[in-house]
């Protein structure tokens, strides 16, 4: 057995010096790997940071609770607390209220105002004064009593106060649905523990103040509990029995898990996408190690002749690959550090828009993520070097005595490889039929992987056969040079073909993503026009951010009903709900007016008949996402308790919807209000509870914007409460803008994958040229001109690029189907109208071809990089 010491020496002498001599290509490959690894690492770090930030914030807000009492879509009477606090199962209980509020004059970050009883809450959340020494363990007592003592006072994290130039005893004006009120800052929180929730954008006030400010007398959002560890099953059963029927006793982690699962699905999507860059980098390693193995046959034979075992050669070539991977990963670190700063913004913004609200300011170094990216990079590099290293093992020591330069060719396997490749491609179909695993589109990704591998395995056969097929054509078109090029391609070995795999992968990914994004965008655009129709949208202040949980007060509703501006309005009441851990929005909407001006994109259900039944309140329509996630179909009944109101309704149709937070269920507003009137004895039950309105102008006025402006002015003047308003046009533009921003990250990743593939093509072509130095010199010797030889290389490159494109197109088309109909459905629950934007493809594909051909330049230049004489001497 050879020692590690020897292996290290051998590696330095044999591999490292060689790589150093050929530093140009070594650097190119390392750079390629580095870019791939950097993209992967930074994407993982960004999402990890987002996930951590979300979890931390949820944990900080959830505090030490081990159970939470919630009412889906509603609130809980706070009088429950006196019963709960005395219950034998309960050790501690703390009621919590929270809402986003705007600070007047401060733009744009809203604060999360949290209302608690600081005494009951002490066992749940930790916070302390900025001013008091950290050493004292008994200190916060002084601090909390002031918010009880002084009405409309609050505590702020010191960081928020500092950012806004506020100090203790300053007064700030908070805006909420019902009113604007002055609050006195009575203390600053040390930036630790609870004060870090929501990235520090919080304010703590007493529960009494909160209720008086928001008008939520007698109600709380939730009650956090700590259960006695020794509480018996009977105690727990008894606890459940004292709770109202529609109130749930759940684990605090449920809310977090729902959010985490949503983010995880996104994490997986982005990881896979960023992995593609690494995957393409794998082809680079393969090219270089294969080149090294090919051009160092003699050295290996010498090593064998003086006593090296085949295994040693295998190890040395694997080490070549590993070295490239490890160095690439190390170079990737500083690149990641820069990249992650840009990515984190996009990623956290996307997560905030699509899934759960979060704000991430810092990226923590996550050792496990770094280890993961290191391991994946290392494994990929070793895997890439495996086949050339196996080839190196086969070299006979006898070759030292011969000057024959035998190259191992695998052409005889191309047929077999093609069959295996086809099998892989065929396997894609059954894989796409499998359901996602717990919201993760694993079968979809497996299908993608099979598709890529299948096409890569198919490429040698295609290369040979297409090469032979087009040789006559080429020679007709461009003479003997092109003929030689075609001949070469027709006889090229697996190595060249596998390198083409990089191009196939990148092109396929490009096509597929362009198709997917375009399909997605055009469907969303259609949805926005149809379903998000309207000229002005009005919601209570912070209505969107507070998830429509604060409807307009009655006095505002009365104003809306008596506006002078002539416009139809659609009122809606929206509730954030969940079903089987799947979040959705229940929206009661005035269908009559809605269908007059807007409509749904139907997937199932006959609009004409369903419209009528919907208006009568005979059932609901659900979004595709909701149907896919819950498994409910048309004809099934939807049962739910929405803010104490029990509904049990048939599903009449399934529609497309691309709203965030999962699915949507639509129901008729007047039918819902009738149902609710059965519960009139509830506190705060009012006839109309509107989460918002949208206005439609009936006149075909040429200047809609002017009408909108007039309506806006009238509302501002008359409405007794602060509102948020947005014109329909702005809203729709906003949605599409968010859409485009969301895919900005994706597009960036795509371009990087293409970049890596271009480097791959460049390396492959240089390899091809260098390997044939002798052959090319012979051609030179028998009378070819430089120009002719360069032209030949150009033709070869062109043929390879075209074949890569051709296969890439096929692969990309299949991939786009998988993305649109399998992966999106499995990870987000939605699909889109399949739409190929030929114009975009027509513009971009020549660009890819040009880029690939540009990549041939180094190869062409390298033809006579060394004078023929030196080549002879080396031999």
């Amino acid at each position, binding site marked *: 057995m050879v020692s590690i010491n020897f292996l290290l020496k051998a590696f330095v002498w044999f591999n490292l010096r060689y790589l150093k001599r050929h530093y140009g290509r070594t650097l190119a490959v390392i750079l390629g790997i580095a870019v791939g690894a950097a993209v992967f690492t930074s994407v993982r770090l960004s999402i990890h940071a987002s996930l951590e930030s979300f979890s931390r914030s949820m944990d900080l807000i959830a505090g030490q609770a081990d159970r939470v009492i919630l009412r889906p879509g509603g609130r809980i009477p706070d009088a429950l607390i006196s019963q709960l606090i005395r219950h034998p199962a309960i050790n501690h209980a703390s009621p919590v209220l929270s809402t986003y509020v705007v600070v007047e004059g401060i733009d744009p970050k809203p604060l999360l105002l949290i209302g608690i009883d600081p*005494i009951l809450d002490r066992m749940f959340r930790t916070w302390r004064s900025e001013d008091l020494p950290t050493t004292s363990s*008994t200190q916060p007592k002084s601090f909390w009593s002031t918010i009880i003592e002084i009405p409309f006072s609050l505590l702020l994290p010191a960081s928020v106060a500092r950012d806004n130039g506020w100090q203790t005893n300053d007064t700030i004006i908070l805006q909420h649905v019902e009113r604007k009120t002055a609050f006195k800052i009575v203390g600053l929180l040390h930036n630790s523990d609870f004060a870090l929730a929501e990235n520090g954008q919080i304010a703590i006030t007493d529960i009494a103040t909160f209720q008086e400010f928001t008008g939520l007398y007698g109600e709380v959002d939730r009650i956090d509990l700590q259960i006695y560890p020794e509480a018996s099953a009977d105690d727990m059963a008894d606890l459940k029995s004292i709770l109202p029927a529609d109130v749930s006793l759940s684990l605090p982690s449920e809310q977090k898990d729902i959010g985490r699962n949503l983010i995880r699905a996104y994490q997986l999507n982005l990881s896979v996408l960023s992995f593609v860059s690494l995957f393409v980098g794998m082809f680079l390693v393969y090219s270089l190690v294969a080149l090294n193995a090919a051009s160092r046959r003699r050295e290996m034979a010498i090593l064998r002749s003086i006593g090296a075992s085949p295994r040693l050669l295998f190890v040395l070539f694997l080490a070549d690959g590993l070295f490239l991977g490890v160095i690439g990963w190390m170079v990737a670190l500083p690149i990641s550090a820069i990249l992650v700063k840009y990515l984190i913004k996009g990623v956290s913004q996307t997560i905030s828009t699509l899934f759960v609200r979060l704000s991430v300011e810092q990226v923590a170094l996550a050792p496990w993520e770094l280890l993961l990216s290191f391991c994946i990079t290392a494994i990929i590099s070793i895997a890439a070097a495996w086949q050339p290293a196996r080839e190196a093992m086969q070299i006979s020591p006898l070759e030292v005595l011969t000057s024959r330069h035998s190259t191992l060719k695998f052409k005889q396997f191309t047929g077999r490889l093609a069959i295996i490749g086809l099998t892989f491609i065929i396997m894609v179909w059954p894989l796409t039929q499998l359901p996602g695993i717990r919201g993760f589109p694993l079968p979809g990704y497996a299908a993608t992987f099979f598709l890529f591998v299948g096409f890569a395995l198919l490429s040698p056969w295609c290369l040979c056969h297409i090469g032979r097929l087009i040789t006559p054509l080429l020679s007709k078109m461009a003479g003997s040079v092109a003929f030689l090029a075609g001949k070469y391609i027709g006889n090229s070995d697996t190595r060249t073909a596998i390198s083409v795999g990089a191009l196939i992968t990148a092109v396929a990914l490009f096509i597929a993503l362009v198709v997917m994004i375009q399909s997605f965008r055009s469907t969303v655009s259609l949805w926005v026009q149809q379903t998000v129709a309207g000229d002005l949208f009005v919601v209570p202040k912070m209505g969107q951010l507070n998830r429509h949980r604060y409807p307009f007060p009655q006095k505002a509703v009365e104003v809306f009903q008596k506006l002078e501006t002539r416009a139809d309005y659609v009122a809606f009441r929206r509730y954030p709900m969940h079903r089987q851990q799947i979040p959705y929005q229940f929206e009661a909407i005035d269908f009559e007016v809605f269908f007059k001006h807007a409509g749904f994109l139907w997937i199932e259900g006959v609009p004409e008949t369903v419209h009528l039944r919907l208006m009568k309140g005979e059932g609901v329509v659900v979004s595709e996402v909701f149907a896919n996630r819950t498994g409910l179909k048309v004809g099934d009944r939807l049962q739910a308790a929405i803010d104490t109101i029990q509904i049990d309704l048939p599903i009449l149709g399934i529609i497309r919807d691309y709203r965030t937070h999962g699915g949507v269920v639509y129901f008729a507003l007047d039918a819902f209000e009738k149902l609710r009137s059965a519960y009139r004895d509830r506190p705060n039950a009012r006839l109309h509870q509107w989460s918002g309105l949208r206005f439609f102008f009936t006149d075909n006025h040429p200047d809609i914007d002017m009408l909108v402006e007039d309506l806006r002015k009238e509302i501002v003047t008359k409405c007794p409460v602060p509102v948020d308003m947005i014109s329909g046009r702005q809203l729709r533009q906003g949605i599409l803008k968010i859409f485009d921003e969301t895919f900005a990250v994706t597009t960036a990743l795509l371009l990087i994958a293409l970049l890596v593939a271009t480097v791959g093509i460049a390396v492959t072509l240089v390899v091809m040229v260098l390997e044939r130095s002798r052959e090319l010199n012979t051609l030179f010797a028998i009378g070819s001109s430089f120009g002719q030889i360069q032209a030949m290389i150009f033709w070869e490159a062109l043929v390879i690029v075209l074949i890569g494109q051709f296969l890439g197109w096929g692969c990309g088309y299949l991939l786009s189907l998988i993305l649109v109909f399998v992966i999106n459905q499995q990870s987000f629950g939605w699909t889109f109208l399949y739409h190929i934007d030929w114009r975009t493809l027509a513009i971009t594909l020549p660009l890819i071809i040009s880029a690939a051909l540009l990549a041939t330049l180094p190869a062409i230049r390298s033809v006579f990089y060394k004078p023929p004489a030196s080549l002879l001497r080396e031999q």
Partner: protein
Amino acid sequence: MPSLLITLFYALFAILVWTSDASATDNKYLQVNGPCHLQFPKDHGSHPGYRTEWWYYTGHLTTENHRRFGYQLTFFRSQLRPNFVDDNHRLPKSDWRSNQIYLAHAAISDLGGKRHLYVEELSRAALQLAGVNQKNMLTEIYLKNWHTRIGPATHQLVMQNSKFSFELNLIPEKPPVLHGQYGYSRKGASAESASCYYSFTRLKTEGTLRIGRNRHHVKGQSWMDHEFSSAPLEPNLVGWDWFGLQLSDRTEIMIYLLRTRHGKISPASSGTYVRNTVSSRHLDRNDFNITVLKYWQSAKSKASYPAGWMMRIPSLGVKLKISPNIADQEMITTMSTGVTYWEGSVDVDGTVKGKPVQGQGYVELTGYDQPFNAPM
């Protein structure tokens, strides 16, 4: 034990409230500066407007197997500010809006097992979490699921916790004793440095006591104090030693010593001697003499407390040796008042007018952990 806890309280809340909001001093709390005119049962209830108030029970219990326990149960009321009128907000008030905070301490001294257990509770007076109810002849002081109900003939105490719980019925054997001048008990030089203070010095007690999983039927004697005031601690004082002793000749002695910064006993220190008849006699500083026999140092707080006394009241012929039943009966109440003090069961042995007497009692020692540096 009048001003001791008041002091503790003030040390705690006054700091917070007064430093954070100077305007709180503008509106004044009600002051105790003259006769209290106590009427029962009305004055068993709470006295909002006064800053601090407490109902304090201690006692000595014995099981059928002659196992001895001491207990303490105290409810405190603390008003955060004189009133909470807020002219800026004409909004209806939330049910949570309250400026009364209730705190409670409970402790058990297991004399045989040499254990001292204590727990604390805290809540605002809102949504039936804590407060005082008075209906007909019944006064209820409650905090979560702890309460005391004071009726015409009995006091009922209930406290529950996972560590221990007890339910006790107390029957007064003597009417309430008003300390000082008809309940007006001076705690310092000025007229306002005073509290309203009365005690039930001898209550026959019976009930159940649970420690962990062990339940005991217990009988014994209790002592009850009720006191309220708005006066802060005078600045030259560091703490208080309070004695409540029940002697075998059916007399009781209450004495509190106010300790000054220089280790002297303030002239405002006083006491009450309750005869075996119904009458009682006020004791002023010159009537008694208490010397410390030894000290005990707490391992937890490092505070050094007196741990044995000789009490002499020459005019009554009283000469008593007072010894703690357990050395460590220290209360570190970080979750409620935040004050560290010693409150414990003691045994008494000595003579009254030459006749031997035994007895038991409770002693409270404050200001040993750290002197109060209240800014008042």
